């Protein structure tokens, strides 16, 4: 045994005054009594124990000196050599994934895991060190390597269940990076065993696994729930739903779907053990909103019984069609329920609508008007292009398949006898994006993003050829309407927990990401795409502007002042993970493994034991004094 602070032994000098005070006789208090007869009877009875009468004061001295000795020894901080040599390093991996919310273990799997973690922390020796890593959604170091028990316990207490997927394997890898090179290191994994890498972990030499689960839990969950706008029907949408029965017996339940709390469908389900039910629902709505699917089934995990999706709202858009006359063109816009169509023969006869789309067929003004423009078969020059001789029988050789304008559109098999050759002027050519071009490289379909508004140009002669007769034509026009209205894409995917989503802000200003539990986290304030996530809670996440002082009414330029609480972007996040829904441990035999509590003696140093002993001695002395066994 060695002493960390041998100078503290100087406090032993305090024994001298204790002995001096002991040697000094203390004058007894004289108390007159009416008669001493009765007292004599008492103390004459005790005469045979007179040796004890003498010793009891000596006992007091011994107790006091022992008390001093233990305190002085504690101040000297003694330690054993083996404490240094045999100090252990632990990484405690706590699985806080969605499946640990399961209640097949009372009160929950995570609660049991945390209890186990506390026991392990309590079992650490004084010089043992531990780091705590959470393994839900993505590995997170909750507490660095330390031997401070209180910090470790606070880290354990701070663990709360996420809705994210299990990432125990990644957490173990992180633990190996943290303590793998150190002597006497062990990785302790507390999990429910609901992941495929469990068998490998059980075989690892440096890993001890403790499972908190029951062998055959029953659970049914929604493993997929997505909604998208129909590609053909402007007000239609489709819902893809999938339910997985992760139990050993068949399950009967109901699957309910509602839009903004209005029921839209209820399906009774009966799913065989291990079976999957999948269905696509086709519905219509211009409103859009929040779609929610619920499983009416009481099982061990509640979080996968609810899934949500965001259905984009469809706005009715004013369209002014300026054309000398083309029935197909009129009908393709008229057939779209989201279009409020006005047809005019000339641009100056057309009514002015704020923010509306102008479709110019053939004749265009020398200077294009501001706002969104869809120009079809331009026959005159303007400030963006000059018109050349017609192109006969152009063949589409190249089309931009990645563009949303070209989604589900194929022009290479369309018969186009004639198209206009346009020569883009300087300044426009740089801004133009060719969506489809001929073999000669002549642009047939292109867009120009000018400051005054977007311009989309289709040079094909609609009166010749079969483009208006092809399904590509209404799809192309629908894509164009979506492109002009900035409603990009028909699918607003509902990511699973643990996923990330990239999103580009449409307006400048400080933004926050609001989680379903109401907590916010700041986002970068720039025009670049922002990565949202990984999402660790299921529910609706929203990107919101931080309210600024200079708030203007809606419709003003973004960034000059925004109202609080108006979501800039909304996304629904679901568990939708078969591994998390399947609560059954992948290795049932591992449930029988003993608890990996490190051997220790309460994690207390020697000086702590000595202080405890000193207090016990003080209490003993106090007890003896109170009982008048010593004085």
């Amino acid at each position, binding site marked *: 045994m060695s002493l960390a602070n041998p100078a503290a032994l100087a406090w032993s000098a305090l024994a001298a005054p204790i002995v001096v005070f002991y040697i000094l006789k*203390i004058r*007894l*208090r*004289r*108390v*007159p*009594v*009416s*008669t*001493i*007869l*009765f*007292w*004599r*009877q*008492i*103390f004459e*009875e005790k005469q045979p124990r007179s040796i004890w*009468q003498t010793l*009891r004061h000596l006992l007091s001295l011994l107790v006091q000196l022992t008390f001093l000795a233990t305190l002085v020894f504690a101040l000297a901080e003694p330690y054993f050599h083996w404490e240094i040599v045999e100090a252990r390093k632990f990484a405690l991996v706590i699985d806080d994934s969605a499946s640990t919310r399961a209640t097949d273990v009372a009160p929950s799997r995570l609660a049991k895991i945390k209890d186990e973690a506390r026991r392990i922390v309590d079992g650490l020796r004084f010089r043992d060190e531990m780091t705590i890593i959470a393994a839900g959604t993505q590995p997170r170091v909750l507490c660095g390597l330390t031997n401070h028990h209180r910090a470790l316990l606070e880290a354990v207490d701070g663990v709360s269940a996420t809705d994210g997927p299990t990432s125990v394997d990644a957490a173990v890898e992180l633990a190996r990076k943290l303590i793998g090179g150190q002597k006497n290191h062990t990785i302790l994994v507390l999990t429910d065993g609901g992941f495929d890498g469990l068998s490998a972990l059980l075989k690892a030499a440096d890993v001890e696994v403790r499972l908190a689960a029951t062998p055959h839990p029953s659970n049914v969950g929604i493993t997929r729930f997505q909604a998208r706008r129909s590609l053909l029907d402007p007000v239609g949408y489709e819902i893809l739903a999938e339910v997985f029965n992760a139990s050993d017996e068949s399950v009967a339940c109901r699957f309910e779907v509602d839009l903004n709390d209005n029921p839209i469908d209820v399906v009774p389900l009966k799913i065989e053990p291990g079976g999957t039910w999948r269905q696509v629902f086709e519905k219509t709505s211009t409103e859009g909103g929040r779609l929610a699917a619920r499983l009416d089934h009481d099982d061990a995990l509640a979080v996968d019984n609810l899934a949500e999706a965001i259905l984009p709202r469809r706005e009715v858009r004013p369209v002014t069609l300026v054309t000398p006359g083309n029935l197909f063109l009129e009908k393709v816009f008229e057939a779209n329920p989201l279009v409020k169509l006005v047809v005019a023969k000339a641009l100056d006869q057309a009514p002015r609508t704020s923010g509306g789309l102008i479709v110019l067929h053939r004749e265009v003004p020398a200077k294009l008007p501001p706002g969104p423009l869809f120009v079809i078969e331009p026959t005159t020059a303007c400030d963006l292009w000059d018109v050349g001789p017609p192109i006969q029988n152009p063949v589409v050789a190249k089309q931009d398949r990645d563009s949303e304008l070209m989604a589900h559109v194929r022009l290479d098999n369309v018969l186009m006898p004639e198209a206009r050759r346009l020569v883009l002027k300087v300044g426009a050519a740089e801004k133009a994006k060719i969506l489809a071009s001929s073999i000669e490289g002549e642009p047939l379909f292109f867009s120009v993003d000018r400051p005054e508004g977007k311009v989309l140009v289709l040079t094909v002669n609609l009166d010749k050829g079969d483009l208006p007769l092809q399904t590509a034509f209404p799809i192309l026009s629908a894509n164009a309407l979506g492109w002009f209205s900035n409603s990009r894409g028909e699918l607003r995917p509902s990511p699973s927990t643990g996923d990330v989503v990239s999103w580009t802000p449409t307006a400048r200003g400080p933004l926050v990401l609001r989680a379903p539990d109401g907590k916010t986290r700041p986002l970068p304030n720039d025009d670049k795409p922002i990565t949202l996530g990984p999402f660790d809670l299921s529910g609706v996440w929203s990107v919101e502007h931080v309210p600024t002082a200079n708030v203007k009414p809606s419709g003003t330029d973004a960034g000059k002042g925004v109202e609080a609480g108006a979501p800039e972007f909304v996304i629904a996040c679901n568990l939708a993970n078969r591994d998390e829904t399947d609560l059954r441990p992948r290795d049932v035999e591992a449930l029988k493994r003993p608890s990996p509590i490190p051997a220790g003696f309460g994690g207390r140093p020697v000086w702590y034991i000595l202080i405890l002993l000193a207090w016990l001695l003080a209490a003993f002395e106090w007890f003896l004094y109170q*009982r*008048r*066994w010593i*004085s």
Partner: protein
Amino acid sequence: MPLFDSEFLKKLEYLSIVSRRVFRGSLLAQRRTTQLGGGIEFADHREYTPGDDFRYLDWNVYARFDELLLKRFQEEEDLHVYILLDASRSMEFGDPPKFDYARRVAAALAYIALADLDRVGVVAFAGDVVADFPLTRGKARILPLLKFLEALAPDRDATDLSRVAAGFVHRNQRRGLAVVVSDFYDPGGFERGLDILRHHRYEPHVIQIHDKREADPRLLGDLELIDVESGAGQKVTVTEKNLRQYRRIFDQFQESLKHYCSANGVGCTRTATDVPFDELILRMMRVAGALQ
């Protein structure tokens, strides 16, 4: 504050009135003697014998039955009440001091007796008789008696009741009631002294006084106990256990006194000084009245 103030005297008068009403002739009031003589209360008849006083002939009987019968009357005699007051140093103990309490009780008893035309004498004792108030009679003598009591002071000697009783019974005086007012902390034991009184045909009555601190002392730790009578000291370490032992021994002492009195037909009154003395007297009266 004087020992016997006007309030005290009022209480004495009240006790005197109550005593006649409640237990006339029991403890201290007139005692009928078995001797027949010149009393006023008729007892019985006997035949006339020559030489008898004609004044006691029952002429009514003679007129009706022609027999000479003599009326006999029960003769009354006054009671001699001796109050033996413990004036040892142990009586000085307590709050209020037991000695003050004892003197008040003695004064009360004496007043009641004097009011009932009994004769009262007071003997203050410790190791021996330290002061003596001779037998006296008549209510008017109460003031000198009070002055005597007030002037008493505790004596240095330790209590020796047997010695005092031995001296007391050999006095040339009539037998009577001997009221012993003491704490009975007699190193030689109280039994011998009371036995002497009984054996010499005195009628002892015991009034034992103690202080609550004697019954339940609050002493703990290392102490030197000083006996106020003998001055002897004892160094002790008093524990809770010792206190329990003390209380047990004190209770045993109290019980032994009570047992002695009940075994020998001796009246016994035990009290603590926190009981008002007039309440104690009334209690004694009730007990005596109940007995008779």
